[in-house]
C-alpha cells in the first residue's frame, strides 16, 4: 500500500495497477497504471488528487483512470481517462483539454538512416523553412468563415480534397480524420477568428516535427504489418487545433460553469465543470469539440503534406517514390462516443482522454482493416534526445482502460523549471553529439522541451506494457527535430 496522505492511499491491484479506493463523495475508485517509482515521482504534485477529483464526475463508469505518464494538469491529470454513461453522465471540457485533438501522426518511408544521415542538415533546414512554427506565425492558408466551416465538418478530408495529401491517408487516421457530429454553428466568432489563419501551422510549446529512425523492432509480425523495419527513417507530426481549440475550450468552460449551477452538480475543482452529455449544453459542447478535433486533423494532414514536400525536395524524389505512407494518426486530447463492456454488458459511453491515446486491441471494427488482426498502432512520442515508441493496442486495454494507453513521456520539469536549470548551448551541443539536429522558433522554446524536462519514455512504456495496456512494436531514435 502507498499512503499519499491520510485521505489518499493506493492499494496494489494486479501488476502495475494501483487502486485508489472510493471514499467520501467519489463515485468510483481511482486506478493508476504505474510502477511504484512513477508514483513516487508524483510526490509534491496534485496529480493523484486530480485522479480522486475526477472520480466525483456524475455518471463516471468503472474508475477514474490514470495512465503511466500521469502528471498534474488542469482539473484532470494529464494521462487521465474517464468514461461516463452516455445517457446519465456528463461531458467535461477539462477532461479533453485546451488543445482539443492534440495528437500525433507517423509517416513511414523507404529511406534508411544511412540514406538520410548526410542530408540531415539540409532536410531539417527545408522542414524549418516550409513549416510555420512559433507564436504569431500564420500559414499560407487563409480561410473565409464559410470555407473554415467546411474544415470543421470535413476534417482531414477537406485537406486531402484540396491536394494536401493522399486519399489513402484518411483510412489510417483515427475516425478517418473526421469526427461526426461537428457543428460550426456552436462555435463562437472568436474561435473562427483565431482559427482563420492557424491552419497549416505547427504552433509552439511541445509541438514538433521529428525525423527518426527505427532503432529496434520488438514484434516482427506487427512491425511488418505496420510497414516498419530496423534503420528505416520515419517522420512524426505532433500538433493540435491551435488557438481555435483553445477558444472553444475557453468558451465552453463558461457555459459549463453555468450548467453546473443549473443542474445542481457539485465538483471539487472548477476546471472539472461539466454538463450532462445529453443536455443542450453538453450536446453543443460536443459538437464544437468535434469541430475543433476536425480542425486538428486537417492541420496535421496539411503539415504531413509539407513534410512530404520537404523530403521530396531534399532527396530529389517524389513522396510516393520515397514510400512516405501514413502509418497512423491518433488523438490524445479528445472526447469520444464509443461502445465498451461495462458490468458485463456493451454500452455506449463518452470516453474523455486527456493526454491519453486510444489503444484498441485486435479485431476491433474501428481499427483500419490493414491493422485489424494486430491491433491499433499506438504512437508514443518521447523527447527529442532519447526515443519514441510504436506500440499496439491490446484486448486488456479494452477491459482495463476503455481501450486507452499513455500518450508520451510526461513532463518531469515544468517549463519554468526547465528554463532555470538547462543551458541552451549545452543542450544544442549534447543533442548534436548524440546525433540530433534541432531547429526551434525560439531558444527558450527549445530549452523548455529539453530531454531533461521529460520523464524517461522507456520507463513509461515499460509500465504501460506491464499494466497490459499496450505491447511494444518498435523503438525509434530522433535524428532531427523542428520545435515550435
Amino acid at each position, binding site marked *: 500500500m502507498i499512503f499519499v496522505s491520510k485521505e489518499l492511499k493506493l492499494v496494489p491491484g494486479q501488476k502495475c495497477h494501483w487502486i485508489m479506493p472510493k471514499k467520501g463523495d467519489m463515485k468510483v475508485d481511482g486506478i493508476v497504471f504505474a510502477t511504484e517509482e512513477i508514483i513516487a515521482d508524483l510526490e509534491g504534485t496534485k496529480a493523484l488528487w486530480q485522479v480522486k477529483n475526477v472520480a466525483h464526475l456524475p455518471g463516471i463508469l468503472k474508475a477514474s483512470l490514470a495512465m503511466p505518464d500521469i*502528471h498534474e494538469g488542469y482539473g484532470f491529470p494529464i494521462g487521465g481517462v474517464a468514461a461516463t454513461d452516455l445517457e446519465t453522465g456528463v461531458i467535461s471540457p477539462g477532461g479533453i483539454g485546451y*488543445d482539443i485533438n492534440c495528437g500525433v501522426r507517423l509517416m513511414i518511408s523507404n529511406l534508411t538512416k544511412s540514406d538520410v544521415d548526410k542530408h540531415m542538415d539540409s532536410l531539417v533546414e527545408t522542414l524549418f523553412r516550409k513549416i510555420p512554427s512559433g*507564436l*504569431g506565425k500564420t500559414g499560407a492558408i487563409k480561410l473565409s468563415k464559410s470555407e473554415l466551416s467546411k474544415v470543421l465538418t470535413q476534417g482531414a478530408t477537406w485537406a486531402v480534397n484540396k491536394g494536401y495529401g493522399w486519399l489513402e491517408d484518411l483510412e489510417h487516421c483515427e475516425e478517418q480524420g473526421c469526427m461526426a457530429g461537428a457543428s460550426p454553428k456552436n462555435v463562437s466568432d472568436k474561435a473562427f477568428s*483565431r482559427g482563420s489563419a492557424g491552419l497549416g501551422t505547427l504552433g509552439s*510549446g511541445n509541438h514538433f516535427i521529428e525525423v527518426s529512425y527505427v532503432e529496434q523492432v520488438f514484434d516482427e509480425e506487427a512491425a511488418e504489418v505496420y510497414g516498419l523495419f530496423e534503420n528505416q527513417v520515419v517522420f512524426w507530426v505532433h500538433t493540435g487545433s491551435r488557438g481555435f481549440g483553445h477558444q472553444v475550450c475557453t468558451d465552453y468552460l*463558461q457555459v459549463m460553469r453555468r450548467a453546473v449551477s443549473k443542474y445542481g452538480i457539485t465538483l471539487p475543482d*472548477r476546471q472539472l465543470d461539466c454538463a450532462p452529455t445529453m443536455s443542450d449544453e453538453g450536446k453543443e459542447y460536443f459538437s464544437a469539440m468535434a469541430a475543433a478535433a476536425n480542425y486538428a486533423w486537417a492541420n496535421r494532414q496539411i503539415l504531413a503534406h509539407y513534410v512530404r514536400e520537404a523530403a521530396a525536395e531534399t532527396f530529389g524524389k517524389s513522396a510516393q517514390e520515397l514510400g512516405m505512407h501514413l502509418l497512423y494518426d491518433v488523438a490524445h486530447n479528445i472526447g469520444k462516443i464509443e461502445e465498451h463492456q461495462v458490468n458485463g454488458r456493451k454500452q455506449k459511453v463518452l470516453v474523455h482522454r486527456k493526454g491519453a491515446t486510444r489503444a484498441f486491441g485486435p479485431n476491433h471494427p474501428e481499427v483500419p482493416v490493414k491493422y485489424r488482426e494486430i491491433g491499433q498502432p499506438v504512437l508514443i512520442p518521447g523527447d527529442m534526445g532519447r526515443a519514441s515508441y510504436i506500440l499496439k493496442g491490446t484486448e486488456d486495454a479494452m477491459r482495463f482502460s476503455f481501450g486507452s494507453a499513455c500518450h508520451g513521456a510526461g*513532463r518531469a520539469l515544468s517549463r519554468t523549471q526547465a528554463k532555470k536549470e538547462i543551458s541552451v548551448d549545452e543542450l544544442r551541443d549534447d543533442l548534436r553529439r548524440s546525433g540530433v539536429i534541432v531547429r526551434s522558433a525560439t531558444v*527558450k522554446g527549445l530549452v523548455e522541451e529539453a530531454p531533461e524536462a521529460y520523464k524517461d519514455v522507456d520507463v513509461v512504456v515499460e509500465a504501460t506494457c506491464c499494466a497490459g495496456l499496450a505491447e511494444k512494436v518498435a523503438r525509434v531514435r530522433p535524428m532531427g527535430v523542428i520545435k515550435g
Partner: protein
Amino acid sequence: MADVVIQAHGECLEDVFAQMSEGMWFLMFEGAKIPNVCKWAIEVQGMDPEELLVNFLNEQIGFLEVEGLVVSQIEQIEIKKANGEFCLKSDVSGCHLSDLDVSPVIHVKAATFHELEVNPNYARVTFDV
C-alpha cells in the same frame, strides 16, 4: 503541465486586473519595452470576478493571435455589476507585433481556472504556456 503562475496585488479589483495583465505581457516579452502606437477597447463579461479576469486576459491573448496586437498599458479600466453579471470595459494602448524588434519569448495560450484566486486586493492565475 505547461504552467506559469502569476500573482498580482492591487489597491482595488480594477488595479489587480491591470497588474495581472501587465504581468502576463511581461511574461510574454520578458519585460521588453512595448511602445504606445495605438489604442483599442476591450469589453468582457463574467458571472463572477474569477470568470471576468480569465475572460479579460484571454481576450487580450485573442487580440494578439488574431490582430497581432501587443498591450503596453492598461489606460483605463472599469468593472461594474449589472443584472447579475460582471462587466469590464477597458481602454488599452500598445502596438502591433510588426512594430517590435523583439518576438514573444513565451507563448501564453490561455489563462485558466486552475487554482484561480481573485479578491479585491489579490489575484493568482495559472497560465497555459
